């Protein structure tokens, strides 16, 4: 057992209840570790393998494996911005089509995530497989041979390509969608609001939801519910009818890509995350909104009152010592006194991109409010410099 394995096992043994799981389960397995990944293993055929009275093995021409090497493939958001975007671009350009076999390399022989298979399936006639599954050793100790194999390396991804990829996935799964769970669907004048409950209770949990849902239920123009993402087809049906997603920063927000154009995302920032760590909080969803020409509207809500913030279990247990992570992961208690006015602002803009763009004052697609000392105030517009797509080099700060 390698030192890494030992460390990982110890971590899981001691803190199994605190380790993130669900929508990226093997992300949880390796939480806190950068695996030392080796490059794919290439070698020439050995002399014994070359002993042949023919021209060589039968190199299969009817199967084209596309072997995908994607960064952070266990994270839905990272996977989404890289892999389906690349496949959709390649297929749309006519470089590949859906007859190719999609194969995903997963480090350390870890299993593929459910969402990996679900997303890949939308781009192939064949069932997706991990490289371990696809290259398994046969009983006669042989493998399979191919005329061509594509090694698709996805290192970054492309925000602007996300909506088109999401539409391709939506088109594929639409015939399979269950009925929408929204009772108000089709009723004019109702805003349907979804509050995400992240599956890992050790961090980033919205509190006060009983009161929020109770207040919401008193309103004829709102339908509110909480939801934990994970059943992908049901999630898609839910998001198709959703007008506003209220969530923390996180991979679950990727489901917003299945909302209709002009829907809103309200990202709740715990104390400091939306004010001191803009390079992170302002990068993902606001940048996606900006680079996709307002497919969705991004709203941020900084909840700065200390009394409404509680350290995450990860921080409380000493498992998280980084100030940025701690800020990102704090529990926040929502209160109707500031949620209601935020929803009212979102309702007032509706799906009008022009009105929304005016609020961003020509800067980052980022409308950010702060709740502090009993008052809700509009923050200065955010300006982000840096090359698009270059993560962690984006410098975001108030103008």
């Amino acid at each position: 057992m390698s030192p890494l394995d030992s460390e990982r096992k110890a971590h899981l043994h001691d803190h199994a209840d605190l380790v993130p799981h669900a929508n990226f389960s093997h992300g949880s397995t390796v939480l806190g570790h950068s695996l030392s990944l080796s490059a794919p293993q290439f070698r020439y055929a050995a002399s014994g393998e070359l002993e042949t009275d023919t021209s060589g093995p039968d190199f299969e021409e009817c199967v084209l494996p596309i072997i995908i090497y994607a960064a952070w493939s266990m994270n839905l958001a990272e996977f989404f911005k890289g892999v389906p975007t690349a496949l959709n671009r390649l297929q749309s350009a006519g470089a590949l089509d859906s007859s190719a076999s999609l194969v995903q390399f997963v480090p350390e022989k870890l299993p593929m995530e459910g969402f990996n298979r679900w997303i890949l399936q939308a781009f192939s006639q064949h069932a997706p497989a991990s490289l371990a599954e696809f290259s398994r050793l046969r009983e006669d100790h042989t493998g399979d041979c191919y005329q061509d194999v594509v090694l698709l390396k996805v290192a970054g991804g492309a925000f602007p390509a996300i909506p088109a990829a999401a539409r391709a996935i939506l088109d594929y799964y639409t015939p399979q969608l269950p009925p929408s769970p929204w009772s108000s669907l089709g009723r004019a004048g109702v805003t349907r609001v979804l509050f995400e409950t992240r599956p890992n209770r050790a961090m980033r949990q919205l509190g006060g939801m009983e009161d929020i849902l109770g207040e919401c239920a008193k309103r004829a123009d709102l339908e509110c519910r909480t939801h934990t993402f994970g059943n992908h087809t049901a999630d898609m049906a839910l998001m198709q009818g959703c007008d506003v997603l209220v969530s923390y920063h996180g991979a679950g927000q990727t489901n917003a890509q299945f909302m209709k154009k002009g829907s809103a995302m309200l990202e709740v920032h715990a104390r400091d995350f939306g004010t001191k760590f803009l390079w992170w909080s302002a990068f993902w969803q606001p940048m996606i909104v900006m680079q996709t020409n307002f497919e969705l509207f991004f709203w941020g809500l900084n909840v700065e009152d200390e009394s409404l913030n509680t350290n995450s279990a990860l921080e409380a247990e000493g498992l998280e010592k980084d100030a940025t992570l701690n800020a990102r992961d704090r529990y926040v208690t929502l209160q109707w006194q500031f949620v209601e006015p935020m929803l009212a602002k979102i309702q007032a803009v509706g799906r009008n991109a022009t009105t929304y763009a005016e609020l961003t004052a020509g800067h980052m697609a980022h409308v950010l409010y702060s709740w502090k000392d009993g008052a809700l105030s509009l923050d200065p517009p955010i300006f982000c410099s840096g090359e698009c797509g270059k993560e962690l080099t984006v410098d975001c700060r108030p103008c």
Partner: protein
Amino acid sequence: MTRRWLRAALLASGVTAGAAACAAKPLLDLEKLRSLCPDAKSDFCSSKVLHRVCLVQEEFVLWDASAADQHPDGSTGLPTFDVADLKYW
């Protein structure tokens, strides 16, 4: 291992030698693929296409000495493929 190796895909796939033609070969248009990567720096542009390769337990066994079609510089030989940026957190 030699002859079993040679016939493995054949037996497994039911495709007979010399009759490997399928109704329609999967589409792979390298020119169009390369056209998406004018600067070869972004996104998926470090991808590669390998010809005549066998797969055994996550290992790529290249049959020909010049098996690697390495995009974008077209160099041959055993391909390098840096995945050091694949991190799990």
